[in-house]
């Protein structure tokens, strides 16, 4: 996934002065690849999404039927529909900035925090949605760094959640500082197994992990059906019992803001992921296997072992997405637990160029989109599935940057042209 383009002479570099982090980030991959293209990709996807929203809105369609009588009206209505939809999404994602500021004033003066909490609730909701995204996104990204396509994030998420829920409700009498980590550990182990199987099948038999991880997803769904309708069922609906209070991840603010400590776990793991990939020998091996497995073998690395470990790490992170989200928010497992976090994570990882920082930023973006979507559905009548359409487009645009480039008439940087030149090799 890390497409490298040849770097020109680092700008300030005399003998020994290393370019700093920002220079390295941009210079190594070029400004366009890292920042500009993803931004434009998202922007374009949003524009197209907006058009879809407009043209599936019955009122807007009605004005277009009258186009020849009132062309400006049709265009205006289109614009208004899009604007309303996206502003509803914005409010749903962030809350009302004006209101928030006002409430901060109230809180400072009177100490009354109810209004402030209500005002920042949407932001809190969005941030809490970002937690499973960050974790699953990291999982998928680490897989990508090793050239492994872990499409099984969704299934691993559920398995992690199921195991965590079980330890959460079935084990009693432990203090929270043992119970909660234990529950999380259970989720990690279960998900790790779920990732180990496709990993070992790939390493030993060369069976492609895309299909195998997808198969594991379906098996996970069936397993969940069985457990939630059978042994783990509680109450009338297919769902587990609530987990014990000692397993719950506490929230950061008082109710109604639900943002929980899992957010910080996610950010911490992002830092760990960065350290793992670029500051450890194992990370270097993982990336090497992802870029050139043959050279990795020549360097003495056990490619099979690396692949299996990478798959397991990837699956564990995705499983943690389920565990942490469950312990922090729902506190029980049910079929509707995930609105597709696992699949979103794939788009995330691509958008973030498989780099932990990119994943975090993309996760925040997607979380805001998803946080705002329900409100958009209520206000503008658009189904939340528009998010998935936007994601699909983002994937396409990020994976094929040429589309964006030709659309916006961007210059291909000289270095990128040189790296694309045919190798004028022997003779």
């Amino acid at each position, binding site marked *: 996934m890390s497409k490298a383009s*040849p770097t020109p002479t680092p700008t300030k570099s005399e003998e020994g002065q290393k370019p700093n982090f920002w220079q390295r980030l941009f210079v190594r991959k070029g400004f366009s690849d890292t920042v500009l293209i993803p931004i434009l990709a998202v922007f374009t996807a949003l524009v197209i999404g907006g058009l879809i929203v407009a043209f599936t809105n019955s009122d807007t369609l009605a004005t277009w039927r009258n186009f020849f009588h009132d062309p400006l009206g049709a265009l205006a209505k289109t614009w208004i529909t899009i604007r309303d939809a996206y502003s509803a999404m914005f409010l749903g994602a962030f809350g009302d900035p004006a209101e928030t500021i006002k409430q901060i004033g109230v809180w400072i003066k009177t100490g009354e925090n109810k209004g402030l909490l209500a005002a920042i609730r949407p932001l809190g909701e969005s941030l809490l949605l970002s937690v499973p995204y960050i974790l699953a996104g990291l999982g998928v990204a680490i897989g990508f760094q090793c050239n492994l396509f872990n499409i099984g994030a969704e299934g691993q998420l559920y398995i992690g959640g199921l195991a965590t829920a079980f330890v959460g409700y079935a084990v009693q009498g432990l203090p929270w500082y043992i119970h909660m980590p234990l529950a999380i550990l259970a989720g990690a182990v279960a998900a790790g197994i779920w990732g180990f199987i496709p990993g070992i099948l790939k390493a030993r038999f060369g069976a492609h992990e895309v299909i195998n991880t997808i198969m594991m997803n379906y098996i996970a769904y069936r397993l969940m059906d069985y457990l939630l309708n059978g042994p783990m069922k509680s109450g009338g609906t297919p769902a587990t019992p609530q987990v014990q209070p000692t397993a719950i991840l506490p929230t950061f603010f008082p109710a109604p803001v639900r943002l929980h400590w899992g957010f910080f776990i996610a950010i911490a793991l992002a830092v760990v992921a960065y350290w793992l990939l670029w500051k450890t*020998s194992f990370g270097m091996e993982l990336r090497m296997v992802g870029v050139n497995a043959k*050279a990795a073998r*020549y360097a003495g690395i*056990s490619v099979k072992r690396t692949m299996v470990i990478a798959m397991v790490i990837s699956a564990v992170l995705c499983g943690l997405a389920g565990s942490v989200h469950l312990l922090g928010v729902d506190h029980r497992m049910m079929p509707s637990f995930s609105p597709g976090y696992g699949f979103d994570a794939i788009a995330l990882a691509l958008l973030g160029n498989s780099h932990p920082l990119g994943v975090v930023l993309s996760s925040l973006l997607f979380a805001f989109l998803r946080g705002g979507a329900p409100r958009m559905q209520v206000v503008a009548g658009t189904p939340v599935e528009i998010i998935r359409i936007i994601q699909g487009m983002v994937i396409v645009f990020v994976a094929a940057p040429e589309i964006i480039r030709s659309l916006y008439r961007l210059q291909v940087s000289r270095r990128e042209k040189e790296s694309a030149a045919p190798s004028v090799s022997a*003779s």
Partner: protein
Amino acid sequence: MSPLMELRGITKSFPGVLANDHIDLTLNEGEILAILGENGAGKTTLMNILYGLYSPNEGEIFIRGSKVSIRNPHDAIRLGIGMVHQHFMLIPVFTVTENVMLGVESVKGTGILDRKTVSKSVNEISARFGLKVESEAMVEDLSVGVQQRVEIIKVLYRKADILIFDEPTAVLTPQEAEDFFKVVHTLVEQGKSIIFITHKLKEVLEIADRITVFRNGRVVGTTTPSQSTEASLASMMVGREVILTVDKKPAETGDVVLDVTDLHVMDDRHLKAVDGVSFQVRAGEILGVAGVQGNGQKELVEALTGLRSYETGRVELLGENISGASPRKIREAGTAHVPEDRQSDGLVLSFPIKENLVLNTYYEPPFARGINLNNAEIVKAAEQRVKEYDIRTPGIDVSASTLSGGNQQKVIVAREFSRPIKLLIASQPTRGLDVGSIEYIHKQIVKKRDEGCAVLLVSPELDEVMSLSDRIAVMFAGKILDIIPASEATKEGLGLLMAGIRSKIQAEVA
């Protein structure tokens, strides 16, 4: 008599590279024209233009006096130009017949293949030009020499009059090369005209009617065999005096470092590639393994470096049994490996040079503590190695793909030589390099040998093996037919061995 084909002012550039710079070339009817030049001189580019795979930026092509434009292989084929590529363009899972007719298939009715007719034609061409093939054989089962014949038949089936051969003898034994030259003469007798690209000086003198020499994308001169010698051609190719042999003192050998006993190794298709090989390499000597590619050398090297497992055989390094050890263990035991394909095996092109320079030791102190990498140490070591081996690069953070072939090989050498080594295994270490880099690598290998290292050199370039080695082993069909001191080796003798014919001397010694 006007020339059959004439090129005027052909120019072709790629981003950053001027591959052909106003080339003028003529080919007369019924002649064998050799195009001689180093790797990267622009020869294949020009031929690809002739065959319609590239289009020139400037220049004109005339055939039989009329100007033509060749925009794709169709046009070239129509004009009677046929090309036999250096890397064969065959479909392994198709039969000979299917490969020959691909693109110009005979059909019955609406698109149904008519294999019989084509098969008959193949047999006719085969008989007429002395190119023995079995028309229904699957190409992947054929030997390299026979595959080349299929390529030639392909070209003749399309009624080519001008045949272009790109490095045709690269994969042939000296005897197969002789057979090939016979075919070339037959082709000329039957009215064809031949262009022949090569970098082998001896061949050119043997077979060509005229020789055009390329250097850096330009034609530097045209001459004939009677007017040139190897040395004169070499200096035309390179632009300066070229020393064709390596200066080295006689070997001072020590203990046995590498001891291989009865090694049997299978290839990817579960066929035997190394068939009971035994030999020893001592400290301070270079054992060269000569042989045409495909006789088991690749598998032998892979087995010795731990990349390929084997069931039978024993390999010892200074008495320590390394049979079946992992590549890392073998390295740690004191082996260095300069691999055959530097870009795919020896380097991770997208990683920065500094990481490539420690690719063999990054996991050990001082570069790593536990799994923590110590970037400062890596940078220090990298900068030191760049200086010591004179690697031309703008910095150590650039990715390895920006380096030229010669500098890439230097990175590998710098890395491998930076720890004390007892055994150096070098596979085709100078493939695709310019003469300057070749000289450098050869010097380094000899230096290591003089320091007391044991060197195993595997190369299909007979000249290289003969000039560097102290002893020469010849591999054929997975066996080592003979090991002789370099001083007693002759081109002819080695050629016979490479073709599987044991010499009388060896029979006496055994």
